[in-house]
């Protein structure tokens, strides 16, 4: 089997004095969609924050594309080919939609090249193109999430990491966001996501990891986890 794109090996992480993750292991292969699910406080988002460098207090190994990145500061991570969609559809609300996307391509110094990157994202999200001159803060929740995803795609990353993409969105927009994730899957992109809507996430995903209290609990294909009795009772509302 080929090497994984991302390997998380015995990851410990803490918020100040409080340890949140205890030896978490995970792998993401190219072209795969991987979901991290689990109850509140399991440390799902913490895994993501540790991988992208927003959480400094961490130890273990995080190997991306053959390189251990655990010591890298967060601002060095995008250059490696990791796109990040933060929790809570965070956009730069006073800037236009176009400027938000340009920030996603901050590392591209050449203006023409940046514009091409913006156009590519507009082609994928025509709705954003319609709103390109609007302040991002004036968009609907679903559009803001679309913009956050578009911003993460500006550097054409090898891996897109999403933290709770459907959190706080109305059902109509949840539907839209999952359609977009389907679309990304169809394009063969590699996704790692944390999602509280576990059933939807596992249906979309190739594989899933269940975390509990900061430790690996279950790990299987999305379909197998959906069918698993214990997982269903514990995390999927017993359906």
């Amino acid at each position, binding site marked *: 089997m080929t090497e994984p794109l991302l390997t998380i090996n015995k990851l410990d992480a803490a918020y100040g004095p409080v340890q949140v993750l205890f030896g978490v292991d995970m792998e993401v292969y190219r072209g795969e969609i991987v979901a991290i699910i689990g109850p509140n406080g399991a440390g799902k988002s913490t895994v993501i924050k540790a991988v992208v*460098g927003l959480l400094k207090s961490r130890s273990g190994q995080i190997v991306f594309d053959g390189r251990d990145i655990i010591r890298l500061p967060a*601002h*060095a991570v995008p250059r490696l080919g990791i796109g990040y969609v933060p929790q809570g559809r965070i956009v730069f609300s006073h800037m236009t939609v176009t400027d938000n996307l340009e920030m996603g391509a901050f590392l591209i110094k050449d203006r023409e090249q940046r514009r091409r990157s913006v156009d590519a994202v507009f082609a994928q999200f025509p709705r954003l193109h319609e709103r390109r001159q609007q302040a991002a803060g004036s968009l609907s929740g679903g559009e803001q999430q679309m913009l956050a995803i578009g911003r993460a795609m500006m550097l054409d990353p090898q891996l897109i990491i999403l933290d709770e993409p459907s959190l706080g969105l109305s059902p109509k927009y949840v539907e839209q966001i999952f359609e977009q994730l389907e679309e990304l899957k169809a394009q063969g992109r590699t996704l790692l996501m944390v999602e509280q809507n576990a059933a939807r996430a596992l249906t979309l995903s190739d594989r899933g990891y269940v975390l509990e209290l900061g430790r690996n609990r279950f790990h299987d294909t999305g379909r197998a986890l959906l069918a698993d009795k214990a997982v269903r009772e514990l995390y999927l509302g017993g359906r």
Partner: protein
Amino acid sequence: MHLLEPVLLLQFLVSGLLAGALYALLACGLNLVFGVMRVINLAHAELMLAGAFLTYVLYAWAGIHPLLAFFLVLPALFGAGFYLQRLVVERVVGKGELQSLLLTYGLSIILINTGLLIFASDFKAIPELQGALIVGDIAISKPRTAAALLAIALTLGVYHFLKHARLGKAIRAVAEHPDVAMLCGIDVVRMRMFTFGLAAAMAGAAGVMLTMIYSFSPETGADFILKCFAIIIIGGMGNFIGALYGGLLLGVAEIFVAGFVSSQWAEAVAYVLLILILLIRPTGLKGAADVT
């Protein structure tokens, strides 16, 4: 002459705008730092005086004209601000108001006393640019006009930079969501160094202008910093262009009060405006939401 003569009102307005431009330049830098990193820099007016004394030294020792000194003082203060941020101020970013107030208060004390040690507390002035232009029926002071035009040009230039340049937008991104900015590949620490350097350069430029229109001592900063606080609250906390409006408004209001009432009352104008704004529109003229 009657006080309500249109000519006189115009004279007041022009004089007020000229005086306000210096306030605006100084307050914009203060507000930029606050907007980007939520640090209130109590040493901001001392950075202006650093610029003023540097100009004075260049003039007294090397005979360099203040308008030329501008081109030396600006980069010097930018560099000083850049490294001040890296070595000292960065440590208190995100640590709450008290820490940043204590730190910058300490900085201002160090700067004032260094100034007193070197220059004593005598007032200095550079009598280089003098005289007035007569336009129609009003007189416009030459040094004040030069200073005001430079101040406005610089303020609008920085505004344009923040609004449209790639780096300027990155600074605004850091101000709003530092974590997300980081994961756009923006080195937020470096952006804050750049921001503080920019604010210090603006303060330094205000210092160059100060030498052209006022006499000054190492202790002159206190009058200015208090007015600057009033200005940024009047204009909108953290809003760059709001400080421009607030500064011009204060300059004009002071001159009118000095003309119609007395120059002693003019000193109180900043605080009366401050109270009025807090009563009528607590977010300031421009609101406090964005850096620009």
